[in-house]
């Protein structure tokens, strides 16, 4: 009872914060990656950090909130409803936990404050042209030269690589051993000479992704996290840490609620699309899938971190969460109908409003969800192996 009251007052606090700090023109301006801008993302991170809410999951000693699961949910839930800009995950939820868990005091002092206040953007240097699902086969080479490594190679599918000030990279430091045992985890300043970023245009017509080329890039050995050749361990730790947001329950719940509202609209449509039983049934089916996913996520998040139970549930969360999100955006397309078809930002006498075009952008870029972070086929392979091992 006490806890419930506590949570309700927390919710009110969050709402008051959002009301006070988030002006209408900055709401729903960026939804996921689809049309986020660096400026908006950085600004909102700064505002949150000033309030002490920049990093819900970090320990307090590094400026985090150490919120309970319930509080994290409330914050995400209210932020989604208010149309708050989404944060860039590469710093806050990806590299930061690796740095504060395995990094040196110097690395913590150098990076954590800048990640927290939004002044430094990160990107992830994992995938390579020949190493996607088979990440351990990566070839980017780091060769020791005195106090530096000299890095040569290429990373690809680097989301926000054109925004990033720093990149965390998996590089090969030993070619003599088993693939997984020769990898190190480096933090690299994107301004170092020898780094070139080239854009990849994606099927939604946008620029989110990049190729990053390394030619004789000097990286101080002090920028290595943890031990040489233990990088795979940190990468796995990072993936295990991702389970909190991986299912996207809050975001998808927000998307579904808005979709239902939209399907009922007589402002956008002569006949509200929900009056079509096929649309209504699909909405109901998606709601049901969301309920199943939310329950699974709740159980997964309660399992102790790095426990077998937690590890066993990461892959299903990723699988189900990404497929649900993709299917929600596909229904949005069918609700929009022909209004989903125009290319964005074309000048027309009779604009359809952004909803339809946004639905198409989400649908198209959303195809990547079942590819990145280990394809959904690879997730199933991981699960199959765990099951075969009796886990």
């Amino acid at each position, binding site marked *: 009872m006490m806890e419930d009251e506590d949570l309700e007052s927390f919710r009110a606090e969050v709402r008051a914060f959002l009301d006070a700090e988030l002006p209408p023109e900055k709401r729903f301006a960026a939804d996921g990656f689809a049309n986020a801008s660096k400026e908006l993302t950085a600004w909102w991170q700064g505002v949150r950090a000033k309030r002490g809410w920049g990093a819900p999951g970090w320990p307090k000693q590094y400026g985090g909130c150490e919120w309970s699961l319930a509080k994290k949910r409330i914050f995400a839930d209210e932020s989604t409803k208010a149309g708050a800009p989404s944060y860039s995950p590469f710093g806050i939820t990806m590299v930061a936990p690796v740095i504060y868990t395995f990094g040196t005091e110097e690395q913590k002092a150098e990076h954590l404050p800048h990640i927290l206040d939004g002044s430094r953007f990160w990107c992830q240097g994992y*995938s390579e042209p*020949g190493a*996607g*699902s*088979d990440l351990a*086969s990566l070839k980017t080479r780091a060769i020791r030269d005195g106090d530096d490594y000299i890095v040569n190679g290429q990373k*690809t*599918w680097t989301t926000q690589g054109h925004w990033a000030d720093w990149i965390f990279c998996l590089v090969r430091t030993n070619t003599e051993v088993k693939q997984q045992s020769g990898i190190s985890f480096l933090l690299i300043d994107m301004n170092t000479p020898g780094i070139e970023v080239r854009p*990849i*245009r*994606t*099927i*939604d*017509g946008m620029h989110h*992704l990049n190729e990053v080329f390394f030619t004789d890039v000097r990286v101080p050995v002090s920028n290595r996290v943890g031990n040489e050749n233990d990088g795979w361990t940190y990468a796995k730790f990072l993936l295990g840490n991702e389970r909190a947001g991986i299912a996207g329950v809050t975001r998808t719940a927000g998307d579904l609620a808005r979709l239902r509202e939209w399907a009922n609209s007589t402002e*956008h*449509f*002569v*006949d509200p*699309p929900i009056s079509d039983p096929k649309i209504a049934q699909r909405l109901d089916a998606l709601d049901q899938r969301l309920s199943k996913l939310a329950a699974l996520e709740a159980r997964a998040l309660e399992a102790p971190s790095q426990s077998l139970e937690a590890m066993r549930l990461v892959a299903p969360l990723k699988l189900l969460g990404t497929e649900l999100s993709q299917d929600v955006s596909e229904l949005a*397309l069918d609700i*929009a*109908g*022909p*209004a*989903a*078809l*125009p*290319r964005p930002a*074309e*000048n*027309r*006498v*009779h604009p*359809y409003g952004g909803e339809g075009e946004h639905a*198409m952008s989400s*649908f*198209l*870029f959303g*195809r*990547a969800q*079942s*590819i*990145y972070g280990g*394809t*959904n*086929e690879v997730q*199933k392979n991981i699960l199959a192996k765990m099951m075969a091992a009796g886990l």
Partner: protein
Amino acid sequence: MFAPNDDQQLLVDSARRFTQKHYADDKLGQMGENPLNTALWSEMAEAGWLMLPFAEADGGLQPEGQSGLGDCVSLFEVLGEGLVVEPVLASTILAGGLIAAAPASQQRADLIEGIVSGGAPIGVALHEPRARHDIWYCETRAEKSGDGWTLSGVKSLAHGAAAAETIIVLARIEGDPAPADHGGADGLGVFLVPADAQGVTVTPYRLRDDHWVADVALEGVRVGSEALLLGPGDAAEALEAVIDKARLLLAAEGTGIMRRLCLATQQYTADRKQFGVALASFQVLQHRMVDMSISFDQARSLVYEAVTHDLAGNQAEMVRAARAAYRAVSEDGVEVGKQAIQLHGGMGMSEELPMGRALRRLLAIRQAFPL
């Protein structure tokens, strides 16, 4: 069951050479930069593509009693494979179909002659904002004035209209669109409107599949009595038939896209190595590709079934099969597009390969005339 005959196979082969030359992967990025590629459009006319659906008597290719559906289906499969963006469907099947449905006249002969010879495409303005797919919801009005008509309203997503000199406009002559039945389809008329007539504003824009459309605003546009191509009663019936034919040819186009995606995915997974072996060696991916291929064969079978019924003179069965084919492409075709991207992994997300373009076209097909 129908299968392309020798002549149709020649058409397919030459069309395929044409698309492989002009719509090669490395050129796809420049496609649709303008509402019409006039050089390619002329070549299409010279190749006879734009005369396929018309009767010999009207200056087309088909001897009396033949619809040419088998020819059209053969061509549209290749247009799909090649991801061709020129308005062949809009001008020859939609506009051409409505014009051919009108009573014979000098005007009709001139219009068909214009289409067949590769003149400016003729646009078709059927949809309206806020009405989604429901073309029978029509607020645009045509009122009798003197000898002619006055048209007012806003049409959206008019296919072929971006580069057109003449636009076919669906407008309401009788009835009120407000009630639940939207005034019924019987009160509608099909009009010919010059794109440069006073009061007409054509705003062209590009769709995600790089096809061009236009919004067409009509403010008290005055046209003569000859502008009424099909009047109440006739218009709805002709339009229904034309749309079913368009559904079939969109289905044929979609099966062409599905075929291309199946072949490209097979090739990519055979070449791409992960975990030391070709991706195609994983059983789960093999089965996925088998499903894609089965979807393609089913869709093509329905398209061919529709042509078979048409050849036998069984229109009701033709329409049933055409609609089933369109639905197969709308549902399974989009699924094939999604799987092609998934199996290409990150590369499928890149505009460097045509996977995304193919999926976007399949989505546009699905939104064109859904059932």
